[in-house]
């Protein structure tokens, strides 16, 4: 005999009247009795008194830690420029479903081509840069990275580590002055583990600033340069509102 319908199993789980033949089947069918037990457990869990004092959101800084950790193991590839096109005739229903919330995302194929080209280009740049970076140079640039917005990955500045006397300096340059709103801008070095960060100083209004740092910080993995917007709120922790970020090459 065929299995009862889901509706009949629900009725059985809730103790509603069910056709006798149907309930006799459930008693001898492992699959059906497992379903009834799952449904009963669901009712028990839903009906239990939940004494929780509402939802508690984590601190804003946790999101900054998540993105820093992801950036560290998944170096972001420069995004393709936004292309606005109507769906090409060959596009499948699946593509349209993925991009249905607007034409602002380029089609997957096109993105793949762009990403491929950019990966190839950045490999070449990386090789060239690597030679420049690690050439013995007592007072020159040790490493540098583009600073990009977190959402659109737009390049809006650059950070470089340079040797200065017996220590290191972190130079931060933005293409144009960043908007601090009614707060101020702070520069951080976030550890590649995404859990720790240190503030290296306040970025003065303007487009360039220099902060003394140490080789020990870099050696310990504090390699993600981050500029955040902070409020005058007496909270020393990162606000979670990052404007630009970039990870220094190893």
């Amino acid at each position, binding site marked *: 005999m065929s299995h009862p319908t889901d509706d009949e199993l*629900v009725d059985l789980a809730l103790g509603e009247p069910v056709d006798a033949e149907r309930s006799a089947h459930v008693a001898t069918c492992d699959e059906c009795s497992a379903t009834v037990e799952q449904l009963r457990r669901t009712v028990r869990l839903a009906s239990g008194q*939940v004494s929780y004092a509402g939802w508690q959101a*984590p601190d804003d800084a946790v999101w900054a*830690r*998540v993105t820093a950790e992801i950036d560290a193991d998944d170096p972001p590839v420069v995004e393709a420029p936004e292309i606005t096109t109507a769906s090409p005739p060959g596009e499948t229903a699946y593509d349209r479903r993925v991009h249905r*919330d607007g034409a602002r995302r380029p089609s997957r194929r096109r993105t793949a081509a762009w990403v491929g080209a950019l990966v190839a280009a950045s490999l070449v740049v990386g090789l060239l840069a690597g030679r420049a970076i690690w050439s013995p140079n007592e007072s020159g640039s040790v490493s540098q990275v583009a600073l990009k917005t977190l959402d659109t990955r737009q390049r809006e500045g650059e950070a470089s580590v340079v040797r200065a006397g017996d220590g290191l300096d972190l130079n931060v340059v933005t293409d144009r002055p960043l908007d601090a709103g009614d707060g101020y801008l702070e520069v951080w070095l976030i550890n590649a583990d*995404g859990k720790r960060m240190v503030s290296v100083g306040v970025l003065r209004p303007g487009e360039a600033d220099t902060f003394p740092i140490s080789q020990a910080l870099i050696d310990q993995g504090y390699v993600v340069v981050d500029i955040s917007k902070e409020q005058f709120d007496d909270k020393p922790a990162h606000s979670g509102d990052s404007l630009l970020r970039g990870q220094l090459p190893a």
Partner: protein
Amino acid sequence: MHVHDDPDVESAELAVRLVGGDREALAEMYRRWSPLVHTIALRALGTREDAEDVVQQVFVAAWRGRATLRPDRGSPAAWLVGITRHRVADVRTQRYRAHRNLQALATEVVTEPTTTHDSDWAERLLLVHELERMGDPRATVLRMAFIEDRTHDDIARTLEMPLGTVKSHVRRGLLELRDRLKEVERVASD
């Protein structure tokens, strides 16, 4: 053309985008569900520091393991709760080891943190969350049926709704909640 006010459709879209590697989808998931993940972890572990570490780990794991998300299973919330249960268990294991090491070093009595060891907590809070986001009148019908333990006849009279409609909401709603729990189970047993 596309209806966006159905939370299930929106959630499924978010899931498709995450699987496709869209960072903005992860950010949106964080906005929606980090309070759920955090509340479960806080409930299970007792300290904000540990709970926030778990939140960080869950969303990093969600990104790295996005290929294991099944958009056809509906809400990614259940998937995140499944990951949360793993992470909470890891923290507890570490605590247990630290506890043993401390005992080996000194015979001091180490007090257990005051947290619930009820393993159902994650699932209970997920169901609270699902009932909150479920549209009315279904959510109201389910609350009256399961939490207030009222009969279907009583609910039909109170809400001035045909009895058949009440029964249908109870059936569909209960099956939906059961599916969420199955999804938690699937991820937690990986």
